[in-house]
C-alpha cells in the first residue's frame, strides 16, 4: 500500500508520498494556516495527490497540532472533573486550573471498593454543572486502573440524564498509576473530544470524495498510529505527534537501527534530542507533558533545548553563549539579526542566502578577543557544537540515574550509551560532524531534512498497548484500557504464563477490533509477579503485565 504522510507543523505542513516498497515518490511543503488545520491538511493532501501519477490506493497518515493547539490556547470545551479521590493528598492542593469536584466513593490499592458512590450527591453536582454550561465531564477515580466499576457507575448514572455530550473515564486512557496525571489526562481528553470528533467527521467526508484514500490513521505521541475511531475515544493521544514524527523519520531513514544511537533534530529555534536503545526509541518515564499539564499519554522521550539556527548570539568576554531565545531571521536570509546560520553562511559551510550580509552582521558584532568576523564566526560554530554536545551528555547522565527497583538492575544496568549520532534538520550538515567529534562517535546525517516530519508520519505503524492486572486472591482480572473485567476461575492454578497469554490474546483481538492489520510483533514490556501473603502463608498472586505492539517504522529508502 502506498502511504501519504502529512505533518501539520507550527510553520509548515509537510506531505510525503511513499511507494508500496516505501520509496519517497513525492514531497511537498505548504504553509500552515493556524486558524484552520483542516484547510492546511486538505491543501497539502491535494498538492501531493496531484503529483501522484498512478491510481493505486493510498493510506493517509495524519499528524496534526489540533489537540495540542486547543490545549495550549485553552480552546477546548468547558469541562469539569468528578474525582473519586478517597483519603490521601488533598486534591485542592494540586491547584488544577479547571474544576475538580471531589465526590464520595473510592477503591484502595488492591482495587477493593472501600466506599460506594453517593448518587444524590453526584446528580446534585452534575445538575449544577449542566446549568453552568459545562459540556464535557471526566470521571476519574484513584486506583481506577485496578477497579473501574465506580467510574463506570458514575458514568451510567450521568448517562441516564443525558446532560453532557462527552464523558471520559480515567481508566480508559491508561493502565498506569498516577491519579493527578489521570485527572489531567482525562480532563484534557474530555475537553478536546468534540474538536477531534468534528475533525474526524470532515476527514471522513474527504475520504468519500477521494476514493483513492483507502484508510486514514492518526499519529500519536508515541510515534505510532491509531485508527480514526480510536482517535475519537482517546484524542489526547494525538498531542505532541509532531516531535514524534521527526524521531520516527530518523528511525525510518537510518541504515542500521538495531543499535544504540542519539537522534539530534536541529531546527531554527530549538534542537530536539532523542535516545535510541537497541533500535527502539526511549519513552517518557510517566507520560507526555504539555504546557502545565502532566499526563499519562505514552510519549517518546525528547529533550528540547533552546538552541537552533536562528538562536540569539551573546558575545561575552571569554566565551560565546547561544540561545535560549530565537534572535529572528538570519541577516543573510533577509533579517537583521546575527544568528548561528549567518556564521555558517559566512564561513561557506552552507550555500544559502547572501554571504556578504552574513559577513557584514558579524563585523558589526566583533568584540574583545573576537576581533575579526572570521574569528567570531568560528567561535559561534564551536559554541553551538559545544552547547549541543553538553546537552546530549547531560541527558545521558540523567538517564543513567533514573531510579530502578530491582537488585539486578542496579548491579547490571542496561547499556544505553550511543554508538552513533543521527542528525536531522537543515543545520545538521554544519553542526553534527562537530558534535560527533566532541562526543567521539561516528555520525550520519539523514537525507530529506527539509520534509522529514512527513516521512516520519508516512512511515509510522500502529501501536497499541494494554495493561493486565490479575489479583488471584481477589479473583479479579482487569484490563483498564479495554474497560475489561472478569472474575477468574480456578484461581489457585492461575500462573504467570496464563497471564501473559491472556494479555497477548486480548491485545490481538483489540487490534483486530480497531481495524489494525499491518502491525509489528507483540511484546511484553512489563511483567511483575508478586505473592500475596497472609500471616505466613501465600494466599494469592498478583500479576501486572503490559503488552504492546512493538513501535516500529517502515524502512524508507
Amino acid at each position, binding site marked *: 500500500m502506498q502511504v501519504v504522510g502529512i505533518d501539520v507543523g507550527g510553520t509548515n505542513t509537510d506531505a510525503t508520498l511513499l511507494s508500496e516498497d516505501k520509496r519517497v515518490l513525492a514531497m511537498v511543503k505548504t504553509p500552515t494556516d493556524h486558524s484552520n488545520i483542516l484547510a492546511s491538511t486538505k491543501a497539502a493532501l491535494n498538492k501531493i495527490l496531484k503529483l501522484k501519477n498512478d491510481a493505486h490506493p493510498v493510506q493517509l497518515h495524519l499528524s496534526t497540532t489540533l489537540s495540542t493547539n486547543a490545549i495550549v490556547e485553552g480552546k477546548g470545551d468547558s469541562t469539569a472533573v468528578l474525582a473519586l479521590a*478517597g*483519603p*490521601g*493528598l*488533598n486534591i485542592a*492542593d*494540586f*491547584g488544577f486550573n479547571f474544576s475538580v469536584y471531589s465526590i464520595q466513593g473510592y477503591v*484502595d*490499592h*488492591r482495587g477493593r471498593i*472501600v466506599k460506594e458512590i453517593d448518587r444524590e450527591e453526584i446528580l446534585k453536582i452534575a445538575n449544577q454543572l449542566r446549568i453552568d454550561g459545562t459540556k464535557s465531564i471526566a470521571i476519574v477515580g*484513584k*486506583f481506577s486502573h485496578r477497579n473501574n466499576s465506580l467510574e463506570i457507575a458514575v458514568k451510567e448514572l450521568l448517562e441516564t440524564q443525558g446532560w453532557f455530550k462527552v464523558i471520559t473515564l480515567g481508566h480508559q486512557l491508561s493502565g498506569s*498509576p*498516577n*491519579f*493527578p*496525571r489521570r485527572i489531567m489526562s482525562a480532563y484534557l481528553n474530555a475537553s478536546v473530544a468534540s474538536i477531534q470528533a468534528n475533525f474526524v467527521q470532515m476527514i471522513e467526508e474527504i475520504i468519500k470524495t477521494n476514493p483513492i484514500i483507502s484508510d486514514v490513521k492518526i499519529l500519536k505521541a508515541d510515534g505510532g498510529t491509531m485508527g480514526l475511531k480510536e482517535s475519537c475515544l482517546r484524542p489526547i493521544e494525538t498531542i505532541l505527534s509532531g516531535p514524534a514524527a521527526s524521531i520516527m523519520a530518523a528511525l525510518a531513514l537510518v541504515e542500521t537501527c538495531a543499535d544504540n544511537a542519539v537522534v539530534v533534530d536541529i531546527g531554527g529555534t530549538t534542537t530536539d534530542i532523542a535516545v535510541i536503545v537497541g533500535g527502539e526509541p526511549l519513552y517518557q518515564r*510517566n507520560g507526555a507533558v504539555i504546557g*502545565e499539564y*502532566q499526563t499519562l499519554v505514552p510519549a517518546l522521550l525528547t529533550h528540547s533545548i533552546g538552541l537552533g539556527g536562528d538562536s540569539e548570539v551573546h558575545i561575552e568576554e571569554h566565551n560565546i553563549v547561544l540561545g535560549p531565545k530565537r534572535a529572528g531571521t538570519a541577516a543573510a536570509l533577509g533579517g537583521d539579526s546575527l544568528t548561528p546560520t549567518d556564521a555558517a553562511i559566512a564561513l561557506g559551510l552552507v550555500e544559502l542566502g547572501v554571504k556578504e550580509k552574513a559577513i557584514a552582521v558579524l563585523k558589526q558584532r566583533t568584540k574583545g578577543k573576537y576581533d575579526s568576523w572570521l574569528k567570531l564566526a568560528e567561535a559561534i560554530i564551536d559554541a553551538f557544537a559545544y552547547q549541543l554536545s553538553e546537552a546530549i551528555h547531560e541527558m545521558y547522565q540523567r538517564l543513567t*540515574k*533514573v*531510579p*530502578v*527497583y*530491582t*537488585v*539486578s538492575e*542496579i*548491579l547490571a544496568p542496561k547499556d544505553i550509551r550511543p554508538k552513533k549520532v543521527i542528525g536531522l534538520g537543515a543545520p545538521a550538515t554544519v553542526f553534527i560532524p562537530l558534535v560527533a567529534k566532541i562526543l567521539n562517535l561516528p555520525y550520519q546525517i539523514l537525507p530529506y531534512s527539509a520534509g522529514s516530519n512527513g516521512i516520519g508520519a508516512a512511515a509510522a505503524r500502529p501501536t497499541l498497548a494494554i495493561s493486565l492486572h490479575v489479583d488471584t486472591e481477589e479473583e479479579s482480572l482487569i484490563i483498564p484500557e479495554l474497560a475489561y473485567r472478569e472474575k477468574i476461575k480456578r484461581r489457585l492454578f492461575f500462573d504467570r504464563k496464563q497471564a501473559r497469554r491472556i494479555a497477548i490474546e486480548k491485545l490481538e483481538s483489540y487490534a483486530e477490533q480497531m481495524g489494525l492489520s499491518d502491525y509489528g510483533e507483540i511484546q511484553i514490556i512489563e511483567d*511483575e509477579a*508478586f*505473592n*500475596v*501473603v497472609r*500471616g*505466613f*502463608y*501465600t494466599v494469592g498472586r*498478583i500479576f501486572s503485565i503490559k503488552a504492546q505492539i512493538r513501535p516500529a517504522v517502515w524502512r524508507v529508502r
Partner: protein
Amino acid sequence: MITAKHRVGLVFFPAFDWCISADHPEREERLLYTRDQIIEEGLLDIPGIVEYRPIVAEEKDIQRVHICVPSVAKRVSEPHRIAAGGTMLAADLVLDKKVERSFALLRPPGHHANRIVHGSRGFCTINNEAIMVEHIRHRLGPKVRIAIVDTDAHHADGTQDIFYNDPGVLHISLHQDGRTLYPGTGSFLERGGPASFGQTVNIPLPPGTGDEGMLYVTEQLVLPILAEWKPDLIINAAGQDNHYSDPLTNMEFSARGYAQLTDLLNPDIVVLEGGYSIEGALPYVNVGLILALAGLDYSHLKEPDWHPTRLKQSRQVTETIHEVVDQVWNLWENRKKANLQQIFGKDRFYTRHRQIFYDTDQIIEKQYERIRLCNECSGWRLIFSETNEGVGLSFKIAAIIVPWLSCNLCRREALSDFDKLTESKTLDYVYFQDNEQDLFLCK
C-alpha cells in the same frame, strides 16, 4: 500548583527481586503496595520531591562499622550493600545541600545488626544507620553530633550496641516494652558505656500505645532531650510496625500519627526500618512521612479501615506511659551525677560477658568485651567472640576497636595487643578497626 515546602530527597529502593525466603515478612512485595500508593498519589511529580537511585556501599564503608566474620564478602549480599549505600546517599544529599531532608525508603533493614556480624538477626545483617553515621563522620570529622531517634516498635539493639560507648552519638529508642516483644532488650536501665553514659536512652512503651501516647512521649521527652543535647543532625530510624495493623507487634499508631511524629521530630534524614503490615500500614505511613517531610498537608490521609475511636488509648496505658516518661526524664537529667566508678568499676578496664542470639540465622554468639576506662578518650576496646557449633561454620575471633579521637596511649596499647593476639593459635581471625586512621586489618 502543589510544591514541597521543604525539598525532600527520596532514595526509594523496594528490591523487588530479593527476599529472605518466600513467605518471610522481609520479602519481595514488602514495598510493592507502598510503591503503588506513592505513584498513584502522584508524589513523585510534586516539585521539590526528588527521587534518587541508590549507590552500592563498598567493603570499606561497611568495615567502618562492622566486623563481619569471616569477611564482608562472606556475610553481606548485594541487596544489603544497596540498602546501606542508599542510606549513605540519603546523608550525602543533605550534606551536599541538594535537599533539605532525605528519606531512605528501602529494604532490607538494619537496626538489629550489631558491630560483630556472624549472620542475620531480626531480619538484619548490616546496620544501615550506623554505616551512614560513620560515612558522615568521615566527611565532617569526629566532632559532629548525631542523634538517632529509632521509632521502630522493636528495640534498636544493634544500633545501641554499635554506639553504646560513643560520645558523638545520642541514641534514643522508642519501642514496645522488651518484656512483650523481640528482641527483649531496651530497658531504660541500659544507658550506655563509660564514655557516653546516659546517651543511650531507651523508652519502653506498653502494648496498646496509640498516637496520643506516642505524641506525648515525643513532646514531653524526646524533644526536650534533643533540645538539651543539641545534635547537628537528627536521624530517624523510622520503623512502621507501631501501626495498629502490624502483624508482629501490639501497638496502635496510625499513619497520620506517624506523619505528626515526623513533623515534631523534624529529622534531617529518615531511614525505613521494620514494618510488616505491607498492605494496611506501609502505603499510608510512607505517604504520610513523605508529606510531612515535604511540609505538605497530610490531614486528608487515613487508612481505609481507620476509625476515630482508634485514637482512644486506655487509661491504664496512658498512666504507664506517663510513668515511663517521668522515669526516663529523671535518668536523663541525672545522667551526669551518676557514679561511674560504681557502675563500671575502678579497674583499668570495664568488662562484660554477653550472649547474643541470631534468630534469623539460628546462631548463638558468646562475647567477652573489655573497654579501657580512659580519662583522655572513650577508650580502646577488645572483643572476643565465638559462635556455637551446629548450624553452619563456627568462628572464634578477636576484634580491637580504636575509637574516634583516641588518645595516643589507647592507640598504642590497642596496636600492641593486636600484634600479640595475631600470634594466638586458638583464634580464627583477629580484626583491627581504627576509624580515625581509616584503617581496617584482618589477620
